[in-house]
């Protein structure tokens, strides 16, 4: 009976360590640094800028705009908007008052300037009627450029993302969720240590089992094939998904390896001490 209790305490300790690791990874995901890792690769940036340039070229052709008219508003847009998105992600998880709406590319003033520039363009004037120009310049070009840049950088439906974040914020403020996860990770670690004391002389095996099971937990995630799912939806999202998984993988397997090594060390040291005593 005593043996069974010790065994159950050891299994619970392994579960606590794994739970702490999951919460710690969640805390890492909600940092600016993680968002930067997701959007950092050159290939992704080039693809995003290509998508933006393509949208601008289509608009230029459709509304007979001067070839270079939209360039100042789309040049380097992928990089700058990406930095804005990274800062936004960091803000919403650290400041309860932060704006949950994803950042837009053009400020109202920039949009007004762009509309004025389009309305003054000769090709545009020749193609459109006086009464329609303002509406077309604003809705079909300036707004469309804003949407194209935002969707190229963060290929997420903005309305749904905002709705989900607002719903979560109404229940518990996002920064508080992050803090709760951090505190939860600490509490679970302490609990695991207490359970290890109950499990009596099995700390090494508990750490090793936690490391092994943590590595094994990546199997269901690999089987889910999230990049494969994303590939059916968006080629920008699939690159971002791969970056995110690579970043999480380093953290996850790093922590698993650390626990394995710690377990081996504990067992090794105990054996060495045992031999000395003999």
């Amino acid at each position, binding site marked *: 009976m005593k043996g069974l209790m010790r*065994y159950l305490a*050891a*299994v619970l300790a*392994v*579960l606590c360590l794994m739970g702490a690791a999951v919460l710690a990874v969640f805390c890492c995901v909600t940092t600016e640094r993680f968002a930067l890792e997701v959007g950092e690769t050159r290939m992704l940036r080039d693809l995003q800028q290509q998508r933006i340039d393509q949208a601008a070229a289509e608009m230029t052709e459709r509304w007979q705009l001067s070839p270079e008219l939209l360039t100042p508003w789309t040049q380097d847009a992928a990089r700058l908007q990406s930095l804005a998105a990274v800062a936004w992600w960091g803000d919403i998880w650290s400041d309860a008052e932060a704006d949950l709406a994803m950042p837009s590319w053009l400020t109202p003033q920039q949009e007004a300037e762009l509309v004025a520039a389009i309305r003054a363009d000769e090709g545009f004037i020749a193609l459109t009627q006086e009464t329609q120009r303002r509406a077309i310049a604003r809705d079909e070009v300036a707004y469309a450029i804003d949407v194209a840049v935002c*969707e190229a950088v963060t*290929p*997420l*439906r903005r309305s*749904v*993302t905002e709705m*989900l974040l607002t719903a979560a914020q109404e229940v518990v403020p996002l920064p508080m969720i992050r803090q709760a996860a951090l505190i939860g990770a600490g509490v679970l670690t302490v609990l695991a240590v207490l359970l290890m004391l109950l499990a009596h*002389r*099995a700390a*090494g*095996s*508990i750490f*090793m*089992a936690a490391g*092994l*099971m943590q590595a*094994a*937990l990546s*199997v*269901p995630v690999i*089987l*889910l094939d*999230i990049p494969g*799912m*994303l590939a059916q*939806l*968006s080629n920008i*999202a699939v690159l971002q998904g791969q970056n995110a998984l690579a970043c999480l993988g380093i953290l996850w397997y790093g922590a698993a390896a650390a626990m394995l090594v710690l*377990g081996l060390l504990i*067992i090794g040291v*105990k*054996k060495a001490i*045992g031999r000395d005593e003999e």
Partner: protein
Amino acid sequence: MQDRHPLLCTLALCAPLAALMAAGIYLAGPTVKNAIFAALKLVVIR
């Protein structure tokens, strides 16, 4: 037990969790996969 058979002890601790995980993948895997794909379709822009 750990002092004599550390590997056996580790495997004994992993066994129930691994069995639970395998059962989870077998029973709930396809449902979870479909649910995640449906959620992605809702959020990610094609």
